[in-house]
């Protein structure tokens, strides 16, 4: 299996930071706010590998730093320290050493993101089809008819009625907005896709169909994914391996069935025991 992403010691501190920040925060300190300077240690020393076609789950409660990880890997947020390398065919991208133009190129061509909040992933001032066209245009496709046809196909694949492609996503239900986001993220067939709490807040039946769709896409396109969620059910269904985070630290990682059936850390044991 080919490695597609390598993350080493990823760290993100919100605030000015002080020398005691790291020692005074984390699961042992039971906080992610430094008592000395008030900075928030959102993530510290996060390291993991992701292989092609693999789904990795990042699980944790709010404030655990799980979203911070994917945000930095998608350039939504700049890390304070650490390294991340994307291995893309013959090329290697040292993510945090790229300039703004290179970051934009990589984001538009080789990475995809689906946010919990569709307002972050979609432009509500243009149509659903327009949203996808935007991404295709940024990735150098310029023929109008071709773009429209690709957008129509992508929406059909994610089960959005093609006759609604000219409507604004404003008028769509939450589940449909997520489908448009997924179609948009997939438009350039990225080898790496981030999913940040994509089914949180949706009706159960809608959740189930979106999760099915994600699995189908993973099987069809062999897309590697990082799935960030607090939902054990989503982890169980999607992820082969899982990382558990608390107060910005990885406290445990393993095969998903092992994390759920034989959790080692006290916190994970409590988390699994409290699942419905």
């Amino acid at each position, binding site marked *: 299996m080919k490695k597609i992403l390598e993350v080493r010691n990823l760290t993100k501190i919100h605030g000015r930071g002080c020398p005691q920040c790291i020692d005074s925060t984390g699961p042992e300190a039971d906080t992610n706010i430094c008592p000395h300077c008030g900075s928030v240690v959102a993530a510290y020393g996060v390291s993991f590998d992701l292989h092609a076609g693999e789904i990795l789950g990042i699980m944790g409660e709010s404030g655990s730093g799980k979203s911070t990880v994917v945000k930095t890997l998608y350039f939504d947020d700049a890390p304070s320290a650490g390294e991340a390398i994307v291995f893309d065919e013959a090329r290697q991208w040292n993510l945090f050493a790229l300039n703004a133009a290179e970051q934009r190129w990589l984001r538009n061509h080789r990475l995809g993101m689906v946010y919990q909040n569709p307002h972050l992933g979609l432009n509500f001032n243009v149509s659903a089809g327009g949203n996808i066209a935007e991404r295709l245009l940024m990735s150098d496709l310029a023929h109008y008819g071709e773009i429209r046809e690709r957008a129509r196909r992508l929406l059909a694949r994610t089960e959005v009625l093609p006759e609604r492609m000219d409507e604004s996503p404003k008028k769509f239900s939450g589940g449909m907005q997520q489908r448009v986001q997924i179609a948009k993220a997939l438009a350039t067939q990225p080898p790496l896709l981030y999913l940040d709490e994509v089914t949180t807040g949706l009706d159960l039946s809608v959740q*189930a169909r979106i999760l*099915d769709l994600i699995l189908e896409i993973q099987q069809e396109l062999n897309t590697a994914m990082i799935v960030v969620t607090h939902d054990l059910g989503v982890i169980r269904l999607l992820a082969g*391996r899982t990382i558990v985070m608390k107060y910005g630290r990885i406290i445990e*990682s393993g095969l998903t069935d*092992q994390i759920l*059936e*034989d959790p*080692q850390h006290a916190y994970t044991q*409590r988390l699994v*025991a409290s699942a419905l």
Partner: protein
Amino acid sequence: METILKIEGLSKHFLLHDQTKLIPSCANVDLSVNAGQLTALVGPTGAGKSSVLKCVYRTYLPSGGRILYRDGSGHSIDLAQASEHQMLQLRHAEIGFVTQFLHCLPRKSALDVVAEPLLTRGENREVAQGKARELLALLRVPERLWAVPPATFSGGEKQRVNLARGLIARPRLLLLDEPTASLDPATTDRVVELLQAIKREGVAMLAIFHHPDLVRRLGDRVIELAPPVAVTDLLETCAS
């Protein structure tokens, strides 16, 4: 005969942090499984039979000992120490696990559930479904159920879907945890025939059977496990 799996001094215990308890599950287990043979695990409930299987599949992290597995290219790997990616690769290509319970997507047809292991190995849909039909018929799952998601099936029907799914890709090592627990005698006979056929193909099996009769019919070796010593309360141990 080639030894596929050799377990040496395997132990497993659970450390429950919130209750500060150490719960032993199995200890000092030694066994081996040869290609084309079935090693049966027997013993009373709570003797840790399922734990041994789960340690081999790494659903449980072994607490001690070695689980030496010889893979398809002749390399020996200690599954107790193997990386997560190594384990995923082995599960994908070589090691199968059939449990009493069927875990699958609630919205997939029985046929797709059975065909899936072949699909993930890159087999085309037609061929995979063809083989799935063959196995479902052999295990006497009524054809009217094939297009239905197994969620509503009876225990015995689910179990047969589960078996078909576990057998379809012909693993190199097959772990079986009471695969016939809720089957009628006629269907059980079919399963026995099927497992015998698979043994002849060279598949190594480590199995737990509900019924002593099945151990007698299928087992080439029998390993008896005894329940481990009692639960340790860590606080009491520290206090004394």
